[in-house]
């Protein structure tokens, strides 16, 4: 412990004030302070206990939320941290999804094999697309990445053995999801307790989300992360001080694509069968836009923002679809008569983006930060 003198109040309390760090080692810790540690434990408890409490259908939706969260964490590294706009993320998700169906379901590869292959292919794809960012900036880069999803659609449509092997779809039901003795795909069987596929997939997915979050968080705090932020803020100045913007940008694309591919694997497993028209082309563009909306609503550049945004957007859409059919919202009947749930979902999605950007452009994470700061500063919260 350092020899820093504590204040009178701190000495009386016997410990330093709140989250004060007294050494560099303490500063580097991921989870700092008593509140955060407690929160971490509580999250772990929820993670373990939640699948035992809620229905399989909701768990299925939460698995999809997890897939989108992983993809959003990757995209946040690219857009939020490195400042490179990409609207082609769906193409990388497609890479992961088709690895699952072709290698996992079609060829019977084990989970780790096709999962790692997906990540590697994602890395390679990102490294190939990355050089475009060196030549183009801002709006031009955004539009070229739109081209990515349309090129992907063309390739997937013509590659019939990959995208339509079974009656017009690519199934993933038979893909093995087993790590060692733990078979998540068929439902965990721990002797005394047997769990369903949805419960097991929930645990696997959110463990992967936690892993992705830790990777991203550590990346942000490392030298590479600082280089990315330098490139985002002033790339010419960054070059002057020794950061290589080219390598940083390409690296960012590669990491984002790898995470997108990982998200694609979970997405494919969660759905049971994948359709290339939803992962590429105009619907692929909408999926990319959904990712971007997730990170903007959640908070650009933050890891917890990506996760919160994914929960808000994906679970929110499902919530409206379920509840909207049952109860008229604002007195407007939702099925068939005035507006269908699909259209209502679209209007609310767009409206939410607009409202958030008008009122809190920095997203849910900033909203939470405001609430937290208010409590921390209490009673001087102004």
């Amino acid at each position, binding site marked *: *412990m350092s020899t820093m003198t504590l204040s009178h109040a701190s000495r009386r309390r*016997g*410990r*330093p004030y709140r989250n004060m760090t007294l050494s560099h080692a*303490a500063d580097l810790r991921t989870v700092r*302070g*008593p509140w955060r*540690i*407690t929160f*971490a*434990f*509580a999250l*772990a*408890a*929820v993670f373990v*206990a*939640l699948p*035992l*409490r*809620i*229905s*399989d*259908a909701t768990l*299925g*939706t939460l698995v*999809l939320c997890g897939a989108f969260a992983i993809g959003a964490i990757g995209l946040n590294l690219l857009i939020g941290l490195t400042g490179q706009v990409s609207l082609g993320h769906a193409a990388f998700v497609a890479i992961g999804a088709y690895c699952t169906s072709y290698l996992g379901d079609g060829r019977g590869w084990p989970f780790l094999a096709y999962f790692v292959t997906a990540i590697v292919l994602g890395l390679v794809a990102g490294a190939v697309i990355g050089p475009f960012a060196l030549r183009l900036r801002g709006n031009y880069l955004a539009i070229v990445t739109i081209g990515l999803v349309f090129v992907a659609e063309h390739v997937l*449509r013509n590659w019939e053995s990959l995208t*339509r092997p*079974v*009656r*017009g*779809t690519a*199934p993933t*039901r038979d893909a093995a999801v087993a790590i060692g003795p733990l078979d998540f795909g068929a439902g965990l069987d721990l002797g005394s307790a047997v769990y*369903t596929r949805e419960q097991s997939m929930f645990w696997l997915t959110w463990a992967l989300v936690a892993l992705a979050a830790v990777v991203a968080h550590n990346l942000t705090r490392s030298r590479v992360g600082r280089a990315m932020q330098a490139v985002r803020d002033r790339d010419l100045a960054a070059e002057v001080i020794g950061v290589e913007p080219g390598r940083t940008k390409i690296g960012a694309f590669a990491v984002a694509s790898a995470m997108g591919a990982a998200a694609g694997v979970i997405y494919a497993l969660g*759905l*049971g*069968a*994948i*359709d290339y*028209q*939803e992962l590429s082309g105009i*619907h692929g563009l909408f999926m990319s836009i959904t990712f971007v909306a997730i990170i903007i609503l959640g908070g650009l550049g933050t890891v917890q923002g990506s996760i919160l945004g994914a929960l808000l957007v994906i679970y929110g859409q*499902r919530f409206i*679809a*379920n509840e909207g*059919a049952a109860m008229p919202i604002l007195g407007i009947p939702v*099925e*068939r008569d005035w507006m*269908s*749930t*699909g*259209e209502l979902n*679209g209007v609310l999605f767009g409206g939410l983006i607009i409202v958030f950007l008008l009122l809190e452009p920095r997203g849910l994470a900033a909203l939470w930060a405001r609430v937290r700061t208010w409590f921390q500063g209490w009673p001087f919260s102004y």
Partner: protein
Amino acid sequence: MQHLRRSTPAGIAITAICLVALAACGGRADSESGSSGGEGSAGAPAEAPGFDGTTITVGALTPTSGRVAVIGNPVTVGNQIYFDMINESGGIAGKYPVEVLVRDSKYESTTAAQEYQATKDDVSMYVQLLGTQVVSSLLPDLEQDGIVASPASLDSFWVREQNLLPWGGPYQIQVVNGVDWYLTEGGGEGKTICSLTQDDAYGATGRDGLEFVAEQHGITLGKQVQFTLGTTDYTTHINQLKGAGCDAVLLTATPADTAGALGKAAQVGFEPQWLGQSPTWLKPLFEGDLKDYAEKNLVILAEGGAWDESASKGMGEMIGALEKYAPDTAADWYLTVGWTQARATHQVLEAAVESGDLSREGIIEAMNSLDTITADGMFGDYGWGAPEDREPSRSSTIYAVDIEGSAMGITPKAQDYSSDAAADYSFDN
């Protein structure tokens, strides 16, 4: 470190409290298809998923928004007016009214999969699943959960599936019959037949049927052109067909693309005999400048009769129900589709009620025990039984375009046409 030591016990305490709270919150709301099956009291069926003792619930996963809603909405209305009609006399077996639970699938497998998971425990079976890729991707789930569904698309794949309740002759049969008609009665002897098909699974149904009938008749086909859904300009496609000297063109498309292609053909003066599969037709698109061209050159390959109360028992009932329960809905061929699905579902549920078992297994057993699924004359009867024995209707109707003369814009030119080639088509895949 001091603060760590003090917070770890706090952390563990809070964890424990959370776990206790979650435990107190009650168990999982759902149960794994918690039906026990078997008999209830005095022959009345026991409660089962989708059946609470008084009402039977059936599901419909259909696009109510988006481009394909123009097909989905009439089918759903067809489902609903049928059940409205029988509910008036008490419902299934006169005792159990039927409720339709409609969910928007947006014609996407993702959304459909989620809606399926959300509704599967509340329905006894699905009266409508719309979309070839939606049905394909849900089929493994249907098998696993033992649920029966009626697909709204006409693919030959569905014939031999245990969990599917298809209706009507598949697209391939439509094409085989249609081309056969053209070659024998439609003046197509010795002429060149080409095709303009969508480049996906739906288009493949047309190409498969065409290949089969060409082989049967020993003719060589002309130019085969494919296009992508939503093409803006058909100049090059029409030019290719025109340049190849096509006398007839099989068209496997959806309404907007049909109007685009035919419009361009009208412009360049290309007038082959267009043979359009059933999904190509949408009356409002052909009421304007395309009317004359369509009436002269287009026939629709579908099934059924005219839009006339006297055409068949089913048609009479449907037109009556439409006037009574949905008077604002326009006449549409897809209403007959929805009606027939509901009729088939009625027969299955009636058999299940009779045997006193509305559980999942009971419904499948009841379905297998039926000899025929009838459509009361609207479509051909479907020879039923176990999947290996099923025999879809092998007749089709070739419709001519008649905007003023028929409420749905088409009127039968050759009704219930069944060719030898269609009789030879095999569904074992």
